């Protein structure tokens, strides 16, 4: 495959009638990286994934995989992509083994032995019809199907939705294992922020169809900080404006803020307000602060 960017969305917009589902969304995923797209339900994640898989034609903009327009060249470009859909789907009457047989005719590199081995590890019966599997087992079959052809790119649309904690863990463990082994590029939409934090290189946050944030996780953690003062001097709220606060709360014990432009240089000036605690912000808190706030789009 060409050294092109594995996944790129350029000013992609999708409308359903008068309602805008995606508004000029642009993002790209670097080779070998893991991109986690997070957002509330209805934020437009699935619409974006449908466009990226060539299932829906964007109203404007383009979606490219490995530099090729996925709407026009879907069947060619998807030979390099493993997909785990939001709702694991396969013909209900076929067993996992039969599905693997079918997939092997589609993907020349499909590793049937590896697929069956993976399902055995998950504890998924190979000969039970897909329709009779539990939701977690269906998800595990979908993941195994996506990984079996050893694709250079994985696209996972909320793969842990509705799964029990054990199944969720198995999904992420498999992902991590595959990443470690092959360096697969991953585009992932999810609500499992804690799990994402351990594997994502870059994070995008969608709110109401607009990309609110698109940044390396490391940089994100650098500039987003939670600050606490037990007894801050007067004027702390005004001074925090310099750090672009997302949340500033005065509490019984003092003041707490989450800021989006933290830097050591700027922070040095805040010594005058007294001793403070500085800590990294968990992705979940950051997400709540960003998406839960009523601030304007593009605040970050």
């Amino acid at each position: 495959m060409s050294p092109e960017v594995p996944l790129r969305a350029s000013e992609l917009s999708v409308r359903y009638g008068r309602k805008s589902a995606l508004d000029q969304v642009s993002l790209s995923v670097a080779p070998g990286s893991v991109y986690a797209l997070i957002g509330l339900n209805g934020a437009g994640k699935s619409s974006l994934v449908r466009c990226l898989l060539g299932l829906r034609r964007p109203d404007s903009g383009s979606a490219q995989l490995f530099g090729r327009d996925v709407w026009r060249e879907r069947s060619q470009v998807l030979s390099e992509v493993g997909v785990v859909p939001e709702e694991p789907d396969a013909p209900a009457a076929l067993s996992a083994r039969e599905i693997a047989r079918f997939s092997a005719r589609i993907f020349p590199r499909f590793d049937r032995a590896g697929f069956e081995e993976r399902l055995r590890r998950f504890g998924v019966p190979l000969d039970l019809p897909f329709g009779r599997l539990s939701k977690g087992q269906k998800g595990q079959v979908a993941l195994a199907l996506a990984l079996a052809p050893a694709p250079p790119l994985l696209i996972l649309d909320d793969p842990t939705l509705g799964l029990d904690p054990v199944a969720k863990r198995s999904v992420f463990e498999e992902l991590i294992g595959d990443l470690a082994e092959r360096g697969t590029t991953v585009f992932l939409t999810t609500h499992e922020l804690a799990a994402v934090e351990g594997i994502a290189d870059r994070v995008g946050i969608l709110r109401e169809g607009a990309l609110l944030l698109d940044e390396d996780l490391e940089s994100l953690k650098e500039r987003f900080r939670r600050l606490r003062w037990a007894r801050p001097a007067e004027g702390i709220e005004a001074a925090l404006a310099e750090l672009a606060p997302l949340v500033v709360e005065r509490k019984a014990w003092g003041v707490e803020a989450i800021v989006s432009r933290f830097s050591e240089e700027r922070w040095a000036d805040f010594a005058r307000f007294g001793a403070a605690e500085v800590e990294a912000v968990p992705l979940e808190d950051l997400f709540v602060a960003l998406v839960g706030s009523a601030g304007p789009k593009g605040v970050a």
Partner: protein
Amino acid sequence: MSAFLAIFAREFRLRRILLLGALFVGLAAPIIPRLQGARGVLAAESALDAALFLGLITGVLFAALLGSSAAAGDLSHGRLGFDFVRPISGWAIWAGRFGAAVALLFASAGLVLLPAILSGGTWGDSRTVALRLPAGNGLDSLGTFGTAVLGLLGCTVLLFLVHAIGVFYASRSAWLAVDLAALAAIGLIVAGALSRLQSHWALEAFGAGAIALSAMGAVALIAASCAQVVRGRIDLARGHRALSIVLWGCLLLGALGLEAASRWVLSAEVGDLETETYTQVAPRGGWFALSGTARRLGTNYASQFLIDGASGRTVRLRSLPPGGIWGGEVSFSGDGRWAAWHLQQPGQSSEVVRLDLAHPGSRPEALQLGLPYRQQLGLSPTGRWCAAFDSDRLLVFELATSRLVASIALDGPSVYEGIQGIWTAPDRFRWYTKRPSEGASEDPRQVRIEITEMALPAGRPERVGEIRAAPLGFPWQISTDGGTVLVRERTSERWLLFDGRTGGFRAPLEFPRRTSALLLPLGRVAAVQHGTEGANARTLVLSEKEGQEILRLDLPRYQYIRLGSLATPTVLLAAGTSKTTEDPAAWHLLALDLVNRKVTEIGRGVPAGGFTGEAGTLGSRLVKTAIASFAVWDPATGKLVPLRLQPAE
């Protein structure tokens, strides 16, 4: 290709249970006739019919099942994405899924029929009612194999139709309004075009159009399902839109094509006639009616025109139904001013239409006479009355008011061509009724002809004469003035002349060899007598109405002679040829000078025919120079003047 095969195999495998069901149904077919008591060959033959009947029911059920599950079911349940997130082209997905569905349908049909075939059933004509129930008698000509193939194709179309309906239902988008509007618009166009063809008896074109449109509908359904899967992918609304655009687009094209074709078929001009059925020339004025088969209309149907021999004005009449033109001829009034004809649509009662030939811009006028079916029409000399008659009843109408002035039962003459009628005066109608001879004669061919007259407006019939017990043959002719009846004896070359009013026998016309004869105006007889066997020699014999021979003219060069009419009081038009052909261009047009006993070749053509008027009028000089091509003979110059026809109104 491998992706297509993978999908095909998967889908076939997923629904293979249907094959078991089909085999089970097929095994029941040989048993059913035996349960009804059939044995041996009859049981074997009936088994195939039973299998076909069961197969049709099974086919419809399977088509509905496969049509709803081939793609629409997965689409509406969001499962089509399984294929679309894999490197499989939309074409392969569509072809694999629908190919498997169609293959299952065909394989099921084979399995339903197989046990009946193995048990001795053979293809042939359907012998049981079972098959006719669903297929209808109209499909008898197809036989069992043809019916089976047609049924299978119908089930295949049903499969795609069910898929389309499934997508409409699952989507329920705003495009449903477009679907309904398109369906209504296309339905209106198609109904209009087909009813236009049907009402003009263009039933061959109707059938061809219906078949073509059905085929186009089938292709449109298949193409639309493909567009829906390929263009719509997993998006129901988008798929619905693609399906609707292709389906209604194709059907609209087909409907518009049918509309254009129907107009084209019915716009046949005189020049489009391939053969001519008849020509009837008005007794005066030069108008004539022409009927023939047009290449656009189909060989069984006749296009009909009224043409003015003076101006070339052409009026297109409604075409005639199949099965001959009996009762479809145009009737002219004796003064040549009016023409009347039947206008009948399939399944409807007949209507009589008349046209005022004296006015250039006149339009056909429906008369609302309420005739139940086509009858022979006879306009009175001034066009005031119209007699309509068949073998059962004579009706007379006053055309200005459409009032029925006489209705007379004719007691069903039983002899072929049993009645002829003429107007002998502006208000007097006479009719000749041929009946089996009564009494002593043992020869069933002995007939008598009753002669009855009726004066209007009183409308009371009065028996005025009878031609008694004669071995009458075919044809029998009545002179235009009603004064003479000419009949050919059935078993000889003798012709008999009778008084046209009283039926009194006048004289025999004896000929030694085969002869054809024509009654000229005023009762004179022109007969053409054949020469010796195989010789190209004919003799024209002209006789007075009392039977005296007044002229004998040899025509040595021609094997076939066709007599026309008196183009002048002394010149009889005729045509001669030595070939067996209907092509007027192969005939020599002859002017037979009855005074100077001279035969002159004018050119190529034949007298137009059907002229019963007086000598010298334009109609008497009308000549057919080729099929649907006419000229008028000018006695002054002796030349033919081509008639230039205007486009038909």
